Each structure stands twice: as structure tokens, then as C-alpha cells.
């Protein structure tokens, strides 16, 4: 097969995977007619490097994968488990996997990929499992990960730095929520919505951690076909997240401190306590109901109380935005760039910023570009 024939086949394969027509692809590239795409896919047209680069960019794939062996590329595509698929999930999924590949590339170039510990694994029977099972699982995972009394404060960092979980943060604008993937090529990856507020992101991370820990591709196929079981699995993941981020003992301790001899606490105290745990006030209220500190009817009543909504909204306005970019990825990719392991334009693309804005984006994060290569000799002792 000639180079142009291989490329043509690969482009067709990737275009189909993204559910794009030849017209869609031509339009995204900025070509008026799709005839060019048709002739490229048939292997009839000589392709220029810039055309290949543009097509690869639209298909969210590295150029080399359009020139590579078809079967190996197909075989290496990892499975992605979606909580709820957004409208344009094919493109978002391709972007998620592309960014996860970039992340893995940086790890390999810096030789850090094999140093992380393995996440715990739990076999879960979704049919028979109940909330009590996942609360026990959450407590065990919290201990194994060493998350402490306020797990949300350290969860993301521990998962990234110690367990090598890759966080990819995307604009899932139409309400789609997080997704998870785990594979031998990319390791554990979590897709988060950048539009989520921090405490919702914490919950999403804990929720997706449940899927990573109970990862079972055969189960996911069953869940795909059985919506009731899928819903149950999602409810278990939510319970796991609540159990993980709001440990029973700590919640009871903190409530006892607030009560201090009295029999009631007010909305401001609840909202303040939710900040301490870095979860939403509502998540805390539901957890209190779950722990029978308050009744479920009271929890539901608070949820719709205009005064609670007003206070909570005001408090939320002062909270920071959620993660927009993984700290670890920024750190590693900057290290790769600063040591000449990736080029500047590649680095800018990995961060999703235009080339001319790279300097200012790095400066905002205290990272400098104007670097002389100075090395420090480290003694073996």
C-alpha cells in the first residue's frame, strides 16, 4: 500500500469514528468542497504536509497515527465509560483520549510513567450491592489512599501524584458529565467538566474513582444495555463519593462541635461546614440525612427553603472556579518543554492555548520561558 493509500484509509477510519461526513470534515478544515476529502480517502490524491496536519488536528489525532498501521491503531483505542454522554460525545471522547495520550507522552519522555502506585481494585456485584457496601468500600479506600479527615482537600493531588491518575478537563457545555478510562497504554484517566464548580468537581472525581476501582469492561457492556442497572451503578457511585468525601466519624465530630451543648445548628454553620469539607452544602445535608443526623424530610425541606438557597448562592459566589488544567500535567509538560523534550508549539497545543498567549499563560502561573540551560551536578551520596 502506498503512503497516500494508507493515509486515505486511516482518515476515513477516524472520520467515521467521529461520526463526521466528508462534508463535515471538509467544512471543519475550511475547504469549500468535500471532493478533496473523497479523493484523499480513495488514496488518489497526493497530500501536502499542511493538509495532513490540518486533517489530523480536526480528527484529534497525531499525524503519525494517520500514517501508521491500521490494525495497531484500532487495537490500541481505550474504552471510555461515560456517566452520561453529551450530545457531541464522539468528538469530546476523541479530545479526551488525545489529551490523555499527550499526557502519557510527556510522562514517557520524562520517564515518570511507571513510578506510580496501583489503585485498589474491588469486585462489585451491582445487582446485589447496596449503600452500606459502598460506604464500607469508601472507608477502606480513604484509608488506603491516606486521604485524612477532609478527603476532598487532598483527593485530586494524591490520585495524580501518587496513583498517576490523569485529569483531563474539558468544556462539556451541554450538560454532559464526567467520563473515565483505564487502559494499559494510558493508565487511569478521568474527564472532568471545566464548567463545574470546585465542590462539584470534587464529587465528580470521587464518583469516577468508584468506576476506576470497580473497573470491569464486561460489566460496562451490560450496563450499556440495561438502563436500570446503569442507574443503580451510578447511584452506588454517588453514595461512594459521599462516603469518601464525608467520612461518618468526621461529619459527626464536626456537627457535635457546632452543637456544643445546644440542639440545633443554623444554615450559615451548615454552609460553613460544607466549605470545610469542600463539598456542596446540599451534599452535606443529604449526608447528614443518610447518617440520620437529620430526617430525609428535613433535608428535602432545606433544599427548597428560599433562605437556604439565598445564603448558599451568596456563599458560592465567593468560591473559586474549579480545575481548568491539571496541576501535574502543567508541571510535567512545562518540565518537558523547558528541557527541550517537547517543542514550544507542541506545548502550546497540549495546553490548548494559542502560541502567542503561551508566555502570558505561563507567567500567570509563575512559570518563566526565558530560561538558560543551567545544570546542577548532584552527588551520589
Amino acid at each position, binding site marked *: 500500500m502506498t503512503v497516500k493509500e494508507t493515509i486515505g484509509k486511516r482518515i476515513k477510519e477516524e472520520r467515521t469514528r467521529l461520526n463526521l461526513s466528508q462534508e463535515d470534515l471538509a467544512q471543519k478544515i475550511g475547504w469549500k468542497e468535500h471532493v478533496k476529502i473523497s479523493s484523499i480517502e480513495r488514496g488518489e490524491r497526493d497530500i501536502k504536509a499542511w493538509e495532513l496536519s490540518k486533517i489530523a488536528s480536526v480528527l484529534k489525532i497525531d499525524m503519525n497515527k494517520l*500514517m501508521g498501521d491500521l490494525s495497531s491503531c484500532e487495537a490500541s483505542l481505550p474504552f471510555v465509560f461515560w456517566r452520561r454522554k453529551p450530545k457531541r460525545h464522539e468528538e469530546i471522547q476523541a479530545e479526551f483520549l488525545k489529551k490523555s495520550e499527550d499526557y502519557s507522552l510527556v510522562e514517557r519522555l520524562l520517564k515518570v510513567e511507571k513510578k506510580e502506585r496501583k489503585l485498589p481494585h474491588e469486585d462489585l456485584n451491582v445487582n446485589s450491592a447496596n449503600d452500606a457496601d459502598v460506604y464500607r468500600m469508601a472507608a477502606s479506600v480513604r484509608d488506603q489512599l491516606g486521604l485524612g479527615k477532609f478527603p476532598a482537600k487532598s483527593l485530586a493531588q494524591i490520585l495524580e501524584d501518587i496513583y498517576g491518575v490523569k485529569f483531563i478537563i474539558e468544556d462539556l457545555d451541554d450538560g454532559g458529565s464526567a467520563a473515565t478510562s483505564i487502559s494499559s497504554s494510558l493508565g487511569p484517566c478521568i474527564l472532568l467538566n471545566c464548567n463545574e464548580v470546585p465542590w462539584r468537581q470534587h464529587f465528580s472525581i470521587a464518583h469516577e474513582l468508584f468506576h476506576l476501582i470497580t473497573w470491569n469492561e464486561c460489566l460496562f457492556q451490560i450496563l450499556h444495555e440495561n438502563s436500570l442497572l446503569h442507574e443503580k451503578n451510578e447511584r452506588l457511585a454517588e453514595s461512594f463519593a459521599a462516603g469518601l468525601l464525608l467520612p461518618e466519624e468526621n461529619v459527626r465530630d464536626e456537627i457535635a462541635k457546632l452543637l456544643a451543648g445546644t440542639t440545633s445548628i443554623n444554615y450559615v454553620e451548615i454552609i460553613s461546614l460544607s466549605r470545610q469539607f469542600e463539598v456542596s452544602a446540599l451534599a452535606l445535608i443529604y449526608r447528614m440525612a443518610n447518617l440520620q443526623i437529620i430526617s430525609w424530610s428535613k433535608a428535602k425541606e432545606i433544599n427548597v427553603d428560599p433562605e437556604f438557597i439565598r445564603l448558599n448562592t451568596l456563599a458560592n459566589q465567593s468560591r473559586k472556579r474549579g480545575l481548568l488544567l491539571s496541576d501535574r500535567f502543567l508541571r510535567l509538560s512545562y518540565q518537558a518543554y523547558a528541557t*527541550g523534550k517537547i*517543542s*514550544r*508549539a*507542541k506545548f502550546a497545543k497540549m495546553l490548548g492555548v494559542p*502560541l502567542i498567549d503561551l508566555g502570558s499563560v505561563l507567567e500567570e502561573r509563575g512559570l518563566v520561558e*526565558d530560561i538558560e540551560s543551567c545544570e546542577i551536578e548532584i552527588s551520589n551520596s
Partner: protein
Amino acid sequence: MKSKLVILDANVIIDMHRNKIWDRVVSLYAVHIPSIVASDEAVYFISRGDNQKHDINLGNDITSKRVRILEATADDIKLLKDKVTDDYFNSIDPGELEAIALLCSGAYENFKFCTGDKAAIKALTVFDLTHQGISLEKLLSEISIKLDGFSKNYSETEFKKQQGYGLQEKDFYLQ
């Protein structure tokens, strides 16, 4: 007749515009730009004076033949890809890969590729093209322009240093 045939990378083009030396450089050198850099990368610059984004209008320069665009083919890129590991190939941006693919094709032996990008300088060494690389400091000194206002990455010293690293790392990247 312009003295030297040069290929510029995107960062160099952007910074030449930012430092207002573009017109002088294109009047004294035969400037060539890889097609990927021209179409996707050297698009804007932020001026020193007002700190605002401005268009880099390469279209006018191309029409008036002040600069020329060089196009590599997918076959040129494939030849490059087959020489190195996938990870190494993926670590370099397509614009720079195109410049290197052009030089590797042997059709541009008299051209010098000017870049301040550490990875691209190392790549020149990895692909045995050290003699076809030139630092911005050296390029500008030949037309009596000093490097003031440019990043340290463009210095001749840094260029040589990266070439040295390229030599050390070369064997890890070759297939």
C-alpha cells in the same frame, strides 16, 4: 540578490514582528516559511508598545514575493517518521517537522533553518542536519542587528548547548 536562504520557525517570525525587524530581515534574506507555520502558527503577534494582538500578514508578503512558502509532502513526513521513535516524532510540532522534512529531502541543501526552540535545535542534530541550523543571534548579527529584546533561547550559546544535548540524546530517539 539576497545573501542567504533561510527557513524560519513560527516563534522566530512572531518575535521578529514583535521586535519590528521583520521588514529588514525579509529585505536582506531570502526568507522561506514552512506551509504549516504559515497557515496555522505564525498568525498573530503581540506588539511591545501597546501589548495588543496584531495580525501577521504573511499573505501580502507572499503575494509580493518577499517571502516564499515551502510545502513538504506527506511522503517527506513519512520518511522522517520512519527514522525515529513515535514518541520522539510526536514531541515535535508539525510546523517544525515540516521544516526538518524539507531539509531531510535533500532539496534544500543551501538553506539554513533558524529556530530558538530547544526541541527543534536538538532535532536538527538528531537528523544529522546540524550544519543547516542557525541561531537567531547569528542570523541577525550578519545583518548588524543585536539580539536585544529577544529571549535568551535565541542566543548562539544556547543554540550550541542544545546541539550538544541533541548529540547526547540522539541514540534514544532513532529507530
